[in-house]
């Protein structure tokens, strides 16, 4: 059982390029989340999805989009990357959005030059 997997592990990207960070969970959790973690700022919620087919905005959604076509996958897309999006990105999932403990993936380290 893998839990939550993220890809790529790390990426260096030129500004202006499009990038999709992948997240897959095999726990059949209903809810999924994307966070960014910056030194000194902690984890900040970008977008979330309570169930397949629905998404919502978190604290810092600008410049990012998500989709939730099925239960397992929750990709995060940067349409046109900017240096301020340099960060470590964590995907998380929880069985029930109303309760609940979130389980985190290993993270993707993204550098935008």
């Amino acid at each position, binding site marked *: 059982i893998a839990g939550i997997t993220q890809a790529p592990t790390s990426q260096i990207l030129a500004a202006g390029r499009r990038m999709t960070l992948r997240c897959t969970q095999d726990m059949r959790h209903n809810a999924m989340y994307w966070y960014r973690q910056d030194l000194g700022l*902690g984890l900040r919620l970008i977008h*979330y999805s*309570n169930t397949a087919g629905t998404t919502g905005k978190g604290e810092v959604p600008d410049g990012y989009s998500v989709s939730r076509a099925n239960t397992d996958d929750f990709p995060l897309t940067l349409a046109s990357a900017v240096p301020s999006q340099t960060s470590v990105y964590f995907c998380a999932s929880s069985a029930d*959005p109303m*309760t*609940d403990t*979130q389980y*985190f993936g*290993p*993270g993707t380290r993204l550098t935008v030059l």
Partner: protein
Amino acid sequence: GESVGLHLPTLSVQEGDNSIINCAYSNSASDYFIWYKQESGKGPQFIIDIRSNMDKRQGQRVTVLLNKTVKHLSLQIAATQPGDSAVYFCAENIRGGGSYIPTFGRGTSLIVHP
């Protein structure tokens, strides 16, 4: 201790000592709180949670205390071990949009000396 909004503090302890990590949360409407542990290069890992209708909850070697009057949360780790060295985050959760929207503190770095 830490506060949602302050720089990352550090707590250094000797192996075998008890550790107390503090967290001040900001929103009196928060009704669910979680402590996470994050080791270097890894994602956060759930430790223990507590709901606002409780003031204390115990797990294995860990205890969380909640004081809603002063909006304060603490994590107590008994007999701290070198493997406990990590950054510890508290998260306050406010129900919104049909889900809990967490706000994370910036973390406290726990260093355990053998």
